[in-house]
């Protein structure tokens, strides 16, 4: 079974590692440890694709946080089948860094599905509908409010993105 590479990118401390650890290991720690370089996680899951459940294998690349996508992030993103852009709902200016990261993915990985994860939904409300609609229109992306702490919507985010990767729907909704 071929493994699919999924990159997880976003600013420092938005919860990229926490989201992956919640999905892969079903654990959460509130101790912040910055990721240096890249961490790799492997996870097998069963995902409903076109009405049938399929066994899939994902290699998740947890790339170190940066406010702007740099050379390192671009290098690590090569060959990815899909990407998750993570933002922190508690930060007022979270949308712009997410847009830039998504622009980088569109430029380097055209046609790959993108998922926007608005994290820390357990302590902050969802973004405005206008922002969500704008992101959907612009990138045709999955948009999910997640909480790595409670696990809310985390598996669905990864499964929906995987379904898009395998279903071949690309970035279009």
């Amino acid at each position: 079974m071929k493994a699919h590479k999924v990159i997880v990118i976003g600013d420092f401390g938005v919860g990229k590692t926490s989201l992956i650890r919640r999905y892969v290991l079903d654990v959460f720690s509130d101790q912040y440890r910055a990721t240096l370089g890249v961490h790799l996680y492997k996870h097998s899951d069963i995902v409903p694709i076109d009405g049938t459940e399929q066994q899939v294998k994902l290699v998740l690349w947890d790339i170190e946080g940066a406010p702007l996508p740099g050379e390192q992030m671009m290098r690590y993103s090569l060959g990815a089948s899909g990407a998750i852009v993570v933002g922190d709902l508690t930060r007022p200016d979270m949308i712009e860094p997410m847009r830039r990261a998504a622009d980088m993915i569109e430029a380097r990985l055209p046609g790959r599905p993108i998922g926007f994860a608005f994290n820390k939904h357990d302590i902050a409300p969802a973004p405005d509908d206008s922002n969500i609609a704008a992101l959907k229109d612009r990138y045709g992306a999955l948009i999910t409010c997640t909480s790595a702490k409670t696990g809310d919507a985390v598996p669905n985010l990864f499964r929906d993105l995987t379904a898009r990767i395998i279903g071949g729907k690309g970035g279009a909704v």
Partner: protein
Amino acid sequence: MRQPINPNFERMRLEAERQRLAELEERSGTLREMLESQVEAARKSNDALKAENAALKSALEAQANSGGAKAAELEARCEALAAELSERLAAERQHQAELKALSASLRSQAESERTTAAAFEARCEALNAELAVQAENDAEAHAKLESLRNALTAEAEGAQNKAALLELEIKQLTDRITEVDIAAYEPERLRTIITPALTSALREAGQESPDEMANVIAPHILKTVKTEILNSEQELVEAIHPRLGVLIKMAVTKAVEDLNRKVDNALPVDRWIAAAKGRITGAPAAGWLLEDGNTFIVKEAMLIERQSGVLLASERSEMDVNNASPDEDLMAGMIAALQGFASEAYGATGAGDLRRFSFTEDTVYLRGTPTKLLALRCSGVAPPEVEARVDELLEIAMERMNGDGHGDVLMIDDFNKPDVAETGGASGSKIVAGVLGAVAAVIALIWGHSAVTNAHESRWISKIEQAIAEDDQLGPYPLSVSREDNDSPILVSGLVPNAAALKALEDRINWSASPFDIELNIALVSEVNR
């Protein structure tokens, strides 16, 4: 006698008669008039009746004419009523039949209820009889309970007395504790009190149950020593530095001695093989003799998509298939990330590509094309031609990938064979040279045997190490497994807590299945204590 006639009277009577007659005549005339008027009225009435009669007659005739239609309507209505009545009658009959059936069913139900009631009655009688017997038994139980209660009451009184005694004892103990507590604040006094007691208790315990003492304190001592070594690394180095030089000198001397002994003790056939290998490869024969103990094996080959790090194909050596290995998908990602980092840092011309790095005890050889990476995870001492062989395997893998893209693209067990150079067809191996072909085949056979023997040895050493690791009580104790040379047994040496742990370890080792001699050189902590 007849009374004489009175003429006056007679006259008077006649007069009255005459008057009366006149009245009658007058009255008769009135009546006549009345009659006449009545007759006239009757005649008028008769005429009126006649006219009325004629009118009625004509009305009746008219009515008789319209009577026919009404009669037909009435007849139809009568027929409809008759039909309705007949339907109602039929329904009524059916209803009656149903009522009869219902009545029959109710009757049978009543019969069954009656039977059930009779059965219940019988059951009630039986239960009554049982209750009567139980009541008798209850009376006995009650009596028993009564006697039990009396016994318990007596016991409770005894317990109360005991509690009073215990309270007294507690009071005395509390006083003692208070004294000890006071003493605890005076360390000198406390030491004076407890030192003799502790010394005596430890001595007794050491004499009476040395094994138990060893079990209890040995793990703590070992843990403490390990922690102290870690915490005082610098001091330790300084402290042992003078001694370390001597130890290193001794170790080097021993290694040289081992080397000499190994060369001296090698079987004639081993020497002959080493000499042949030396002749063929140009490497010293002694080097081949030593290398046999650490044969080069390609444990795993991975073909990786360069950019994404996705594993395209992988293969593990049959010689390594029983050992634990790192997750190949994660390793593929890591290798791609490392290679990407190196290329990024030193340029994408290929000059910056990693060609080899160490991973745990293994060495990973890397070769890349612009789109693919070949990674070989190897162990053992690498022969001089390994780099060329890696290039050849990448070439073979690429050729196979460019073909149908299916099936085995790597074939590392072919690679592990000494004649892989021929398969690649690119390297100038000396093995294929003319007359030496037959000799090389024999060497390859013996070499292969040697490799298999070494693989067996590694597997058995791993099995024994696993048996040690699976035993929880051996966790903190220093134990090692090794084999000095091909003629030596596998040696298990170190320290275990007691004889029982040693026995458990012996039981875990499957002696009879081992193709090698296994020797235990293990000390017991309990023995060491003595």
